[in-house]
């Protein structure tokens, strides 16, 4: 009888430790993401309940360009390359993402097709957060959902500004080159 009690409490302690450890590490990861940085521990714990952990092998696609987006991914460990096929059917590397980085976040807004593919370049563990869960969160915990959506809008706005700056720079360079070519002729 005593043995049984011991075994039970041992199992209880073990499972509790395992569970707290798991959710703690997920919360720690979530805490360091700019998109969720303004959430407190209690709010992060709620988010961690629908953060699905997945393990990917090298050369596996997390998602492919053209597929409808449903989830945002957070890299727990490993490396993912954002790639896009060019006209010669070769993969062009757009970005390399590592632990703590997020990708596919626009899927949190709508289900429009992915603009690029995510290819795993090192064994990776990633957390997936789905738009539908976020929509439900907006109903059940509007204050948390609101904060995330607000920050997502800010991040998207910042990226738009950066892209616009890049576009202006490229246009200037193009005009410069065009001017040089005209001068030579």
């Amino acid at each position, binding site marked *: 009888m005593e043995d049984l009690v011991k075994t039970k409490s041992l199992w209880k302690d073990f499972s509790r430790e395992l569970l707290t450890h798991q959710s703690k590490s997920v919360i720690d990861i979530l805490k360091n993401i700019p998109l969720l940085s303004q959430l407190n521990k209690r709010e992060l714990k709620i988010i961690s*309940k*629908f953060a*699905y952990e*997945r393990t*990917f092998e090298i050369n*596996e*696609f*997390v*998602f*492919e360009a*053209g*597929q*409808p987006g*449903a*989830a945002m991914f957070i890299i727990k460990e490993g490396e993912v390359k954002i790639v896009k096929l060019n006209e010669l059917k070769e993969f062009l590397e757009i970005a390399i993402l590592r632990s703590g980085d997020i990708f596919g976040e626009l899927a949190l807004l709508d*289900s429009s097709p992915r603009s690029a593919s995510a290819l795993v370049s090192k064994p990776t563990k990633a957390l*997936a957060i*789905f738009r*539908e*869960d976020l929509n*439900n969160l907006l*109903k*059940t915990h*509007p204050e948390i959902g609101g904060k995330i959506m607000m920050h997502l809008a800010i991040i998207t706005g910042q990226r738009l500004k950066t892209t616009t700056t890049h576009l202006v720079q490229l246009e200037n360079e193009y005009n410069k080159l065009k001017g040089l070519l005209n001068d030579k002729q």
Partner: protein
Amino acid sequence: MINNERLNRSRVFYFSLFVFFAFAFGFLLIVLQNLVLPILMGVLAAYISLPGINYLKRKNIPKSLAIIILLGVFSIVVFVIGQKVVSAIPSEKENLELRIQLQYKLDKNFLAFLGKENYSSEGNIIDNLVGDELNQMFQSVTSFLAFNENEVTEFQTYIDSSLVSERILFFYIENLKQPILPAPKVENAKDLNYQSSDASNLNSKSNSKISLFLKAISTWIILPFVFIFVLIDEGEIKSFFLGLIPNRYFEMAFTTFTNVDKAIGNYLRGTLLQSSLVGLIIFLGLLLIGFKIQAAIFIGIIAGISNAIPFLGPVIGLGTGLLYAIIVEGIDPIFPFLPQNPLVGVLIVVLIAQFLDNAVFQPLVLGKAVNLHPLVVVIGVTGGSIIAGFWGMLLAIPTIVIVNVVISTIYRQAKAYYIIY
């Protein structure tokens, strides 16, 4: 080469695992078939209650308290309605009296329909044309109401103890005058063989009732537990099943699951709301035409539940209402302009309920969620009744809708995610 071998081994492993679990699941399903319905009902109740839980959560009520509140509300509703329904179920004596009354009224209405004063007199044109055929049909219907020898003796004891009102006694004597005399039923012979003494018979009867009650309790006790645990779940069940899905199908599986969940949830909640509204309209209508509150609740519930069965449902509701209207006496409509004849009243109430159902409730509540071809509906309902009787009829259309939603969503998503062409 090594990879190929590993791949083949994996395939064999997963296939064996699948076959093993399929067999184990099938075996459990057969062995525990009595638990299937309570579990399904528990999941269904939880599923329907989810928006309620979310609403309470939004009002800053903790989830556990919200579940307790919902469970309390459910228990009270089931208890109150159950009590009303149980009180509407007649006792042994009332049952006999009801049958006498029903037989008398049916006889009277049948003779009036044929334009006769009694069975030997001349009738109208219907009687001349198909009188004999109708008479045969009518006899087969009323034979269900006829007393067997035991019941005759039992009723005689009630008469001897002056427990029967004069009105019922009058009906009883009138019934005996008619050519459709109470004939002992076939099962009566069996009853007589079993009967050694009244006391032992009574004992075994009550014993079987208790054992039936205990059996029902032991299987249905699982319902509230299923209800609570499905509601307590914070996505662990979904997470477990998604964990089994390979990465390639992960996003697709989640989207499919969510879409199916939404469609089925909306459909089930819609159907429940629609049936409740129909039941409520019939209940209120029957109250207005002067039915007793117990009878109105009882018929309202039957009409509401059976309304989920397309085509046949309204007929069941109407039939129950008409049956009551035939035997009931002294009906006083609340307003003088309402029909005095309860048969006409029931017909109007059911027609209004069906009109509202088709014109308002269905388009408003269900929308285009269930645009099934009428042929599919007819075959589905008939097939359901063959497989599982009343429950089969009731659950046929929801099952077809669910299968339809699952297959069409999987197909759409598999195409969107380039899994099929």
